[in-house]
């Protein structure tokens, strides 16, 4: 099979022809590496407080300064990357997997199932999403798993709609009928034919959504729902730092805020490139 080298060549081609994608990919890779290696590359213990060095501005020993308890902000940002990425990836993964399957079947089958799911999705979307996430976390309990579940649930309607619409336009395509003539039932038509073909278009959505999910998780922590205090997390760090911003201690907010912004930007820019990589038609 020649698939492997040609895939690699294809990825290289996409990255070379699109500098923004290349940059975003590099940023994302860096982010993932940091998240995985945070425990080893962090210069200090992110939780150990050292009050004698509290509230130091960025300097040679503490590149991003220290917070009110003297904890090294850079170490905390690095460790928080792991948690925030994990939350975002698993939340988006769940909503993508569940949403694509539900939306795929609705789009292919149509009829009563489609109408009912459509109405439920409409109801879900009628809530202010962040408030819904707050309610879910408040009801389920202040834990990381529940942040993931809440983020996944509020994302779900978009994936269902997207998959439904994309499958719907393809369900009468010749290759779908051909698959049926080859003995495929509805389950394998949806899972093995329709959804893989919808994937490139959904990649853009997924990538944009990752950034959004990180913001959402950080937002929940910011208002005190979700990850609790000593754990390093970007949202909490910004929330805690906000108390000091009026006294000119900008780095407490700016550094985690910058990390958050760059991460979201990377994911947003990655989308188009990801679609080009996943679509076999671009591989000529």
């Amino acid at each position, binding site marked *: *099979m*020649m698939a492997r080298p040609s895939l690699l060549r294809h990825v290289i*081609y996409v990255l070379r022809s699109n500098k923004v994608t290349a940059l975003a990919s590099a940023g994302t890779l860096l982010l993932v590496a940091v998240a995985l290696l945070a425990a080893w590359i962090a210069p200090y213990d992110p939780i150990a407080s050292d009050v004698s060095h509290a509230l130091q501005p960025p300097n040679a020993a503490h590149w991003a300064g220290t917070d009110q308890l003297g904890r090294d902000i850079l170490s905390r940002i690095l460790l928080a990357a792991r948690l925030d990425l994990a939350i975002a990836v698993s939340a988006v993964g769940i909503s993508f997997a569940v949403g694509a399957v539900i939306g795929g079947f609705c789009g292919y089958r149509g009829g009563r199932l489609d109408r009912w799911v459509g109405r439920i999705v409409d109801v879900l979307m009628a809530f202010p999403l962040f408030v819904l996430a707050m309610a879910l976390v408040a009801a389920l309990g202040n834990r990381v798993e529940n942040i993931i579940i809440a983020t996944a649930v509020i994302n779900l309607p978009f994936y269902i709609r997207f998959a439904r619409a994309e499958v719907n336009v393809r369900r009468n*395509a*010749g*290759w779908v*009928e*051909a*698959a*049926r*003539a*080859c*003995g*495929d*039932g*509805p389950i394998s038509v949806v899972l093995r*034919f329709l959804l*893989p*073909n919808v994937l490139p278009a959904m990649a853009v959505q997924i990538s944009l959504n990752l950034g959004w999910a990180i913001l959402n998780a950080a937002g929940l922590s910011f208002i005190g729902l979700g990850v609790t205090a000593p754990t390093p997390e970007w949202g909490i760090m910004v929330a805690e730092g906000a108390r000091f911003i009026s006294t000119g201690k900008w780095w407490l907010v700016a550094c985690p805020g910058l990390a958050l912004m760059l991460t979201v930007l990377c994911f947003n820019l990655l989308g188009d490139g990801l679609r080009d990589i996943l679509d*076999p*038609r671009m*591989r*000529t």
Partner: protein
Amino acid sequence: MTAPLLQVEDLHVSFSTRQGVVQALRGVSFSLGAGQTLGIVGESGSGKSVTSLAVMRLLDRAGRITQGRVLFRGQDVTRLGRSDLRELRGAAMSMIFQNPRAALNPIRTVEQQIVDVLRAHRSMSVRQARAEALDLLRAVLIHDPESRLAAYPAELSGGMCQRVMIAMAMACKPALLIADEPTTGLDVTTQKAVMDLLAGLTAERGMAMILITHDLGLAARYCADIAVMQNGEIVERGPVAALFQSPRHDYTRMLVAASPRRDSTLADLAPGLPRPQAGARNDGVRVPGAGPLLELTHVRKSFPGPVHAVDDVSFVLPQGGALGLVGESGSGKTTLSRLICRLADVDGGEIIFQGQSISDMPARDFHRAPQRKLIQIVFQDPHDSLNPRFSAFDCIAHPLRRLEGMRDGAALEARVREAAGRAGLPEGLLERFPHQLSGGQKARVGIARAIAPRPKLLVLDEPTAALDVQVQAVILQLLDRLRREDDIGLLFVSHDLNVVRMLCDDLVVLKQGRIVEAGASAAVFANPQADYTRALLDAIPHFEPACHAERESVAL
């Protein structure tokens, strides 16, 4: 003699693609006088459309004119600035595109669009432009022009959309009209009406026309001169009669041979191919006593709306026989083929396959039926019918994995290679994805996939409609051989009576879901009973030299 209207000199066009620079035109030269008609024919990818786009300077960003000149009334089009070009396009030369519906703006009415064109090039009031728009619609012989003015493109049929396009192209009385495959995708009868109109209008107004088409018969019928293109070059140019009676270039000769005439047989179309074993089976003679393979009795199907898509259709296809299902779009032939393949449910009547009724099982459960494997279908659009994410190998292997439960391995590979070989698909192409294959190659993948599970009935839904003539010729012969060697029954759905005649013993003519005529192909072809059949037959463009001479003498 005065200078010609359009003179193309040594035109080179190249496209920059991922693989590097591709030469699309390599030195095309031709000239066209005022009021002359030129047909440009050639297979897809030969550079016909690129030529017309280059003349209009409408090439997309990847394409570049690297060398040569295009002189229009002595003015070099390749050197014109944007504003000069805008004045030229639409006013002095205009173009009609392949897909009329896509070329019209869907959210503006017909009147608004024609008025836009008129007012862009000629200084006239809105009222004048409206009056002129109505005159134009009358000129293109659209039915009920007054009420069509307010219509949106979506409310018009394909033929009517093309008439509107023609009206827009004619609006500013251009000296040159380029028609790029103007009737592809239209029914034969509509094609004839549209082409007759186009030819009449251009002759009446003294316009020069370039007709770009893959259909040699069409070019012969409506053009005085024909240029044959291959690989970005014009290989031969001459008056129609001379070109067809004594083609000089090999490629022209092949093209002429591959275009079906009124009396040609399958063997005539592609003389280079090995002929089927003469002794295996006699042409046109049925093996009696084998019993019917497929029998339809009073089959009905309707969709929401007043008309029946399929209304009381009954016919019999014998074992190993070939039956043609002929009709225009909307005649229900595609619906019928989907019913027979059990991709849709009948509303009434019965479909009997090998003596067993198969119409009772709902279509959504039919994938489990034992007959699934025996009834296979080849779809109309070879591109659309292949999963973009499957390689050719996977496409062909899919029914084997599904219907015969074969696992990856030597046995599966052997079956795939066998099917590909029978369909004439080179083994080297099996690893490619559909978008990396040409139309003819994709059609072969579709056929290979359908014959891989060794079916007894093959339903072919216009399998050659999207293909070049020489590819069509090869595919038709291939189908005929499969039928003879494997005893596969063929149900051939087509709008082209001439093609059906060559492949099928019997044919059924459908109109609005009803059978208007049925019988042996040769008899129906020679002596059609129904008016509709006669209209269909009459609409097929031929290039019989005799007919052509006759037409010219009438014109004189």
